[in-house]
């Protein structure tokens, strides 16, 4: 991490750093990780800092929590390029990448009001098929509707 950013947020002792989140998307990332409400671990958030790679980026530092791969993969739709570092005792213990799989199970609920999955009591999992990876395009496995990426965080399960 560059010195300029070091000035903005201090290093964390243990936890997860998510870097290279597209500028302004960190709040959505927190929602997708379900870290946006209730009592969670201390989180530092940096928004819209200059980035060579993205123009502007966000950075999240989550203390005392090592996110597992399954949690990280939830972010593929909005922050597929993000880089993840697991921090232990102030140093990077592991680096992880977000992997966008071909199917998203129980991550996003279909936004189409007449989809069969809108009945909350129906027990089968919500399934999305990844039709395109770049740009990301996902479609409900059941009703076939293409999902609007800009609204996707509204439909997180």
């Amino acid at each position: 991490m560059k010195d300029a950013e070091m000035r903005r947020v201090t290093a964390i002792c243990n936890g997860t750093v998510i870097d290279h989140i597209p500028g302004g998307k960190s709040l959505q990332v927190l929602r997708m990780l379900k870290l946006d409400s209730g009592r969670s671990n201390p989180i530092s958030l940096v928004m819209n800092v200059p980035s060579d790679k993205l123009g502007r980026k966000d950075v999240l530092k989550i203390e005392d929590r090592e996110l597992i791969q399954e949690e990280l993969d939830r972010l593929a739709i909005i922050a597929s390029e993000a880089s993840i570092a697991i921090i232990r005792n102030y140093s990077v213990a592991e680096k992880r990448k977000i992997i966008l799989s071909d199917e998203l199970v129980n991550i996003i609920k279909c936004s189409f009001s007449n989809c069969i999955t809108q009945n909350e009591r129906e027990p089968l999992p919500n399934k999305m098929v990844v039709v395109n990876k770049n740009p990301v395009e996902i479609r409900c496995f059941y009703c076939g509707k293409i999902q609007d990426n800009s609204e996707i965080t509204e439909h997180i399960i």
Partner: protein
Amino acid sequence: MGDLITMDDLTNEEIITLLDNAKKMLPAAKGDVYLPLLQGKVLANMFFENSTRTRMSFETAMKRLGGEVLNFTSAGSSVAKGETLYDTMQMVDGYSDVAVIRHPRQGAAQYSADAVNIPILNAGDGAGNHPTQTLLDLFTIRESHNKFKDLNVVLVGDLRYGRTAHSLSHALARFNVNLTLVSPDSLKMPKEIVDDLLSLGCNVTETDNLYENIKESDVIYMTRIQKERFPDEDEYAKVSGIYKLSKIDLVGSKENMIIMHPLPRVNEIHPSVDSTKHARYFEQAFNGIPTRMALLCKSLGIDIDKEVA
């Protein structure tokens, strides 16, 4: 394996085989021959939404093949008591060998297929797919023209909401027809479907004029403008009755041009057309029987070639 949810579940070769098999089923479909290929098998007709032709023709198809039919309607059933589709289908899985489902919600057929082991045949899910209608439409066209390639097919009416027009146009594009899409501006074919048709290499023309396209056409496929889809009466009144075919409009048309309609019709086709050589809509409705017989056999693993030598 034996599911049919959308036409994408079938390859072009499988479609042609189904149509060939449907043709072999014709004597049995008419009741001239008794062909008990499905004796001892039970079909569950699961209609969560109204239907006349689809439900009855599946029932006739199954009975003509010696099978039995369970008819289900949601009114007064466990569904009215709040049962989930998942639970209802678990019951059907135990009671029958194959199920046909029509449901007001989109995706219900795929959902059912995921929920059970028996084959599921989609008979319409919301504004989604209706592949067995498409099969009988293809059968009707092929019976008259013996081919698909380079036919001029004109789809008319509600191309925006009509699931029949959506599925059929996709299938026809796969068989290299020329498509003319006739509708008022407010009921145009959705752009994503037109894009799909173009990407399949189909020649597509969009217009609001039916009458200037009659002379060149090989197939005119009329659809009903569906009153129930409109938010208000005024909007419906603007386009209702915009396309009406009567006998006089057919002067100068090709000898072997056929007129189709998935039915029910309101006033799109005047009864004077019924007695012309072009009318095919009642035959089309009948064709639901041989095509559904062929499909039921396929889903239940019956080899028609072997059985009907």
